[in-house]
C-alpha cells in the first residue's frame, strides 16, 4: 500500500469512528430533548446520562484527531478547505463549543436545567448537518478557485438539493445509529421502559435512513457523474451494507441480541462509508486535489505513521479500560455503582 493510501485509510477509519461515537452522542441529545417535549424525559434521561458522562470528551478528540491528521498527511487540504470553509466550519465550531460546554455545565453543574437540555438537543441535530457540508463540497462545483484564493459559492451550496439531501441523510442516520445503540444499552441496564421506547425510535428511523440514502445516491449522478459511476462499480459493498441493515433491523424487530443488532448497524454504515470513500478516490477535493498531489513529503509521512502506531499502542489499552469500566460494566450500567 502506498503511504498516501495508508494515510487516507487511517484517517477515514478514524472519521468513521467519530461518525459512530458522535452519532450516539448527538442522537442521545436529541432524544433527551424530544422525550422532554413528550413528557417521557424520566424514561430516558438517566440511562443516557450514564453512558455519555464519561465519554463525551473522548468523542471530541476523534474529531480533533481527524482534522489535525488530515492537515498533517495532506497539508494542501489546509489551503483549499481552510480558505473556503471559514464560514461553514466556524458555524460548526460554535455549535460544538455550545454543545460541549453546556453539556458539562448541565451534567456537572446545574442539573436538569431545561435550557441546557434544549441547547444540547438542538445542537445535536445541527452539528452533523453543518459538518457534512464538507463532504458535499468535496464533490466539486461549490468552489471558485483563482490565483488569489479559494472562495465558497455559498448560494450554490445553500440552494443545491444534493447538499440538503446529504444533510437530511446525516440527521436521520445519526438518529438511527444512536437509537440502536441506546436500545442495546437500555437492555444492559435492565431498564425495560427505556428499552421499548428506544426500540421504537430505532424502528422508526430505520427505513427512512435507507430510503434517503438511496435518494442521495441518485442525486449524486447530477452532482458528480464520475463519482456516481465509481459507486455503481462498488455496488457489492452497498449490498453487503444492506444485508447488515436487514440483519440489524430483524434483530431489533424480534427483540433479540441487541448487541449484535447494533454491531450489524455499525457494519452497515462501515461498508457504506468505506464504499463512499473508495469511490471518492483519488480525490480529496474533486477535481483539483488528489491524495497524491496533496500529500506531504515522505519523511513526514513515515514519522506520522510511526507516531500513529505508538499512539495506538497507548490508546487501545486505555480505551479498553474505559469501555470495561463503564460500557461493559454491569453494575455501572445498571446504576448500582
Amino acid at each position, binding site marked *: 500500500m502506498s503511504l498516501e493510501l495508508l494515510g487516507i485509510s487511517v484517517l477515514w477509519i478514524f472519521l468513521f469512528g467519530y461518525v459512530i461515537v458522535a452519532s450516539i452522542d448527538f442522537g442521545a441529545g436529541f432524544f433527551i430533548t424530544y422525550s422532554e417535549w413528550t413528557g417521557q424525559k424520566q424514561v430516558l434521561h438517566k440511562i443516557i446520562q450514564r453512558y455519555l458522562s464519561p465519554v463525551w470528551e473522548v468523542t471530541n478528540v476523534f474529531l*480533533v484527531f481527524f482534522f489535525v491528521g488530515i492537515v498533517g498527511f495532506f497539508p494542501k487540504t489546509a489551503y483549499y478547505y481552510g480558505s473556503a470553509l471559514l464560514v461553514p*466550519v466556524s458555524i460548526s465550531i460554535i455549535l460544538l463549543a455550545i454543545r460541549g460546554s453546556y453539556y458539562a455545565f448541565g451534567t*456537572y453543574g446545574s442539573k436538569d436545567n431545561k435550557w441546557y437540555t434544549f441547547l444540547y438537543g438542538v445542537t445535536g441535530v445541527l452539528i452533523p448537518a453543518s459538518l457534512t457540508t464538507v463532504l458535499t463540497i468535496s464533490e466539486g462545483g461549490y468552489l471558485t478557485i483563482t490565483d488569489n*484564493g479559494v472562495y465558497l459559492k455559498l448560494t450554490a451550496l445553500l440552494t443545491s438539493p444534493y447538499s440538503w439531501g446529504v444533510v437530511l441523510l446525516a440527521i436521520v442516520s445519526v438518529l438511527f445509529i444512536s437509537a440502536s445503540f441506546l436500545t442495546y444499552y437500555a437492555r444492559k441496564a435492565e431498564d425495560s421502559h427505556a428499552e421499548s421506547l428506544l426500540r421504537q425510535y430505532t424502528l422508526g428511523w430505520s427505513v427512512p435512513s435507507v430510503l434517503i440514502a438511496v435518494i442521495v445516491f441518485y442525486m449524486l449522478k447530477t452532482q458528480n457523474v464520475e463519482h456516481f459511476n465509481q459507486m455503481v462499480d462498488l455496488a457489492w459493498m452497498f449490498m453487503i451494507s444492506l444485508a447488515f441493515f436487514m440483519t440489524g433491523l430483524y434483530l431489533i424487530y424480534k427483540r433479540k441480541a441487541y448487541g449484535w443488532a447494533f454491531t450489524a448497524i455499525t457494519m452497515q454504515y462501515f461498508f457504506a462509508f468505506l464504499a463512499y470513500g473508495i469511490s471518492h478516490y483519488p480525490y480529496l477535493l474533486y477535481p483539483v486535489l488528489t491524495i497524491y498531489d496533496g500529500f506531504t513529503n515522505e*519523511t*513526514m509521512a513515515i514519522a506520522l505513521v510511526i507516531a500513529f502506531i505508538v499512539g495506538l499502542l497507548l490508546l487501545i489499552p486505555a480505551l479498553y479500560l474505559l469501555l470495561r*469500566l463503564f460500557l461493559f460494566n454491569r453494575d455501572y450500567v445498571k446504576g448500582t455503582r
Partner: protein
Amino acid sequence: MTYDATMYSRILTELTLAFHIIFATIGVGVPLMIALAQWVGIKRNDNHYIMLARRWTRGFTITVAVGVVTGTAIGLQLSLLWPKFMEAAGQVIALPLFMETFAFFFEAIFLGIYIYTWNRFKKPIYHFLLLIPVAIGSSASAFFITTVNAFMNTPQGFEIVNGVITNINPIEAMFNPAVPTKVGHVLTSAYMTSAFVLASLAAFQMLKGKDHVYYKKALKITMIPAIVFSIATAVVGDFSGKFLADYQPEKLAAAEWHFETESHAPLILYGYLDENGEVKGALEIPYALSILAGNTPSTEVIGLNEFPEDERPPLYVHYFFDLMVTLGILLTIVALLYAVLLKWKPHLAHKKWMLRAIVWSAPLSLLAIEIGWFFAEVGRQPWILRGYLKVSETATTSPHVDTLIIVFGLLYIVLTIGAGVVLRRMFKNNPPEQELKEYGWDHGGEKHVS
C-alpha cells in the same frame, strides 16, 4: 476602516488564543495540584485533602470542558485563518501537532475514568494512579503545542530550494532551539498560575470569615508549590532572555528598547519614547540587560538598528515584557512572604492583608500568562515563521473574518458567563463544611479510617 483580512485574522487568532490559554493553563496545572492533594491525603490519612482533591476535580470538569471546546476552535482556526501557513508549516511541523492529539486522547480517557470512579476502588491509591496519565497527558499536550510555537520562532529542519520545501527532518524541526526555554517557561508558569488560582480560592473564603482548618490546609498545600514554581518560572524566564539574545535578538531588543549594539547594556524598565525616539522617564539598571543576555556585563547585546525597518517588532512589546517581569517578581514575593510568616510568625500568616494579596495573585498570574504570550507572539512580528514567511502573506482571503470576530466574541462571553454561573452554584450550594459533615470527615486527619 477598509477591510483587511490579515488584520482581522490576527485579531480573531488573538481573541481565541487569549481565551483558550486561560483554560489551557488551568488544564495543565490543576491535575498536578489535585494529584498532590490526593497524595498527601492518602499518605497522611487526612480526609481534608481528599475533599480538596474532590472539590477541585469537580470545578476542573468545567474548565476542561471550556478548554476542550476553545482548543477545538483554535485548532480549526489555524487552518481557516492561516491556510498558507498551515500548508507550508504542516509539511515540516505536523508531527508534534499530531502527537498532541494522542496526548488529548490519553488525558480525556483517564479524566473520564477518574471523575466517575471515586468510590469504585477498594484501595484509594488505585484511584490516585488514574490521575497520573491525566497529568502527563495535559503537560504533554502543552509540550507538543509549544514545540510548534517554538518552531515558528526558530524554524529549522528543512531547506528551501527554488521556493520548494525540501530535505525535511521532522525531529529536528520539533526539537528546535526555542524548545527548552519555551517549554520550560510555559510549563512552570502554568503550574505556578494554577497553584495561585487554587490558593486564592481558599484565601477568598477565609477573608469572608470561614475558619475551618480545611481552608488553612488548602492554603498551605497550594502556596508551597506556588513558591517553587514562581521561582522556577523566573529562573527559566531568565534563560529565555538568554535564548532570545542568541536566537531572536530583535525580540529582546524590541522588548528592551535597545537600539545600538553594545556591551554593558542597561536594562530599561517602563518609561516612554519621545518624538525623537529617546527613552524618557525610565528606570535604568546598569549592565542588567547584558547580564540577562549573557551573564556578564561585558556581553554584547545586539540592537534593533541591525535589522531592516520592516522586520522589527512593534516597540510596545516593551511594556508587555516589563509587566510580566514585574508580576513575576511580585508574585514570588507574595508566595515567599506567606511561607516566611507561616514558619516564623504564624499568627500573621492569615491576616487580612496577606489573604488579600493571595486572592489577587490569581488574576495577576493569569494576567502575566496573557501578556507573556502577547509579548512572545507580537515580538515575533512581522514573521509568522521567523525568517521565512510573513504574517501578511499567509492570511485567509475570506471576506467574512470581521463578522466572525463579533460572533466568536459573543461565544466567549457566553462561555465565560456559563462557566462562571455553574462554578459559583456548584460551590456555593455545597460548601465544604457541609460536605465534610456529610462524609463524617470533619476531623480530617485525627479520625483514622483504615
